[in-house]
């Protein structure tokens, strides 16, 4: 499924987006376009899909300054098409990995169970290409706070724990000519408003008052999780 097809699938819900001031932080339905943002490394150089490390996730902020997301290079292609569902009952379809190998995926890095996310001090949410004791398999995203498990190769599908819905996805676009990667929107559950409600005070303290809801435009730095968080724990 290419981007056009994906938008076709989600078109009906995307139309309902962005009416009124409140909706800037909300997307009704299962998909929303945000700014087309180039993913770059810590020095500002564009990340190339073929050169991404595969030992851990990269963290970048998108579509707002206070929202952490994962960029993950999987060992194998992540085919499109897996059917997924939010707790609201909205059905959507995994758009699949991007890049020449179709193995690069993106997710909002917020556990849909009780909202753990990567902080500078520590992260309970991580992608582990090796074996996970909690999941009993390799290549999963785990949240060690309550043993939630997600499958990054299948649209963030829930594999274990009491978490109620898949991780929201970051829609990625790949430029085949340059091998560069862009984030263009989100799909799946809409957690942004809820996330900001829960962490507003903390985000204000860390980023400056109101900065967390500034839209990310142009480019976003994606940093390996082990550099982003002082302790990136897997389980």
């Amino acid at each position, binding site marked *: 499924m290419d981007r056009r097809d994906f938008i076709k699938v989600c078109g009906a819900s995307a139309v309902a987006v962005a009416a009124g001031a409140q909706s800037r932080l909300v997307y009704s339905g299962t998909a929303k376009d945000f700014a087309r943002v180039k993913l770059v490394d810590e020095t500002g150089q564009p990340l190339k899909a073929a050169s991404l490390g595969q030992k851990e996730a990269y963290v970048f902020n998108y579509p707002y300054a206070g929202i952490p997301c994962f960029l993950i290079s999987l060992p194998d292609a992540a085919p499109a098409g897996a059917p997924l569902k939010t707790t609201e009952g909205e059905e959507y379809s995994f758009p699949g990995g991007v890049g020449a190998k179709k193995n690069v995926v993106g997710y909002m890095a917020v556990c849909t169970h009780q909202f753990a996310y990567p902080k500078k001090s520590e992260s309970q949410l991580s992608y582990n290409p090796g074996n996970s004791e909690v999941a009993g398999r390799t290549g999963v995203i785990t949240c060690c706070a*309550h*043993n939630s498990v997600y499958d990054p190769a299948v649209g963030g599908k829930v594999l274990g724990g009491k978490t109620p819905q898949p991780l929201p996805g970051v829609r990625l676009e790949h430029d085949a000519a340059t091998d560069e990667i862009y984030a263009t929107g989100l799909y799946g559950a809409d957690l942004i408003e809820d996330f900001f409600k829960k962490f507003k005070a903390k985000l204000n303290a860390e980023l400056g008052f109101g900065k967390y809801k500034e839209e990310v435009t142009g480019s976003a730095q994606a940093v390996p999780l082990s550099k982003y968080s002082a302790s990136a724990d897997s389980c």
Partner: protein
Amino acid sequence: MDETNSRRGFLKMGGAALAAASTGVAGTAFAAAKGEKHAHAAGGMSGGKLDLPKAKGPRLVIVGAGTSGMTIAAHAKKEYPNFDVVLIDKRDMYSSCFNSSLWYVGVINLEFLAAHSFLDAAVNNNYIFVNATVTGLDQATRTLHTNEGEIGYDFLVLAPGISYDYAKIGVKDVENRIGVQQKFPGGFISPMEHVTLNRKFKEFEGGLFIQTVPSGNYRCLPGPYERACLMAGWIKKNKIPGKVLILDANPEVTIKAKGFHAAFDELYKGILEWKPTSAVTGVDAEKKIIKTEFDSYKFDDASIYPNIRGNTLIEQLGLVDPKSLQKEANIDVRFYNIKGDPHVYVTGDSRNHPYSKSANTSNTEGQFVAKVLAARAQGKEIAWESPETVCFSMTNAFPPEAIKVDAKYTYDPKTDAITGFSPDTKTWETRDQAMGRAYLEWAQGIYRDMFGA
């Protein structure tokens, strides 16, 4: 037994039980139930109605703003937006029981436990919070009585937690019991106990500190062992000339035994001693002596954790399961309604299940009960789901290192009973700092779920 005698019976025991109640009952405005459906208020300030807006949908009244009640309140409208939800608690300030021992050694501060507002929870989850004390229940007319007035319900959830049962550790004399309760609190019910225990840690200058562990299905199985480890670590770090003695009513550490024994042996040798099969049979609060069947121990300070029981509110409303050894509620084992009454439910640590009485059990159970209520409000039924007990214990505070268990439970349809932990239960008993960090996020996640903030 006629109702008069029944009531007299209640009042006789009521004095002892009331003092320990977490979500208790004001005064003596009770008649014990003669039948399942006729517990009612016999006086008190229940003449008027609670001053609330008219219900805009089926009214769900929840009593008890602990983990269970708050989880159900937070999820009820998400599961069924038509619900009109009212949460009632006699407390006006929350402070977390789970994680509280970590405060005593400085791993967290009081703000971590207590900076959570019932007002924010109500606003964020679209319900009404009422600060009131339950005084009675009339199941026939679906009316709950409180000291602030009465309220009708379509569904009522009672989640009052536990009460202590000092008689089971041989503490029966009232004067002595009050001495034990006030001087050496168990620390598994109320914030004031936590404040006292925090002070004890900071004031302990040496000698013997005793932590007792009761028999039965007590609240927070690893809790007393964890606290003993933290006290031993505190003594070690601060070079206090003191020792910790665990008097355990059980023959083995009741959960995560391997991980706790490793901490006892590797971290606290010579500081902490664990004595199994040492049920407390008496305490002299004045002389600071604890008796077991064969020994007696003179202590300098202690946290005496007595046996526990379903909150006295459950007994006062006539809802106790006659087969329950801990006076827990007579509820359907899968769907939590009082047997014979689909409108009244008991959840959390007053349930009559062998579930671990822990925060994560109540949190995951509460999410399920919200679905049960939503289904029943629409005339439907849903399949049973097991709660899950993900539970960390800090066996070392310097640096913070923890162990963990992840358990679900098995239901046997032949006996209509919960038979214990499910076969896929896992433990992680090699303490490490990663689990120490996860422990804190575990608690914060549950607070976020309860308060929406």
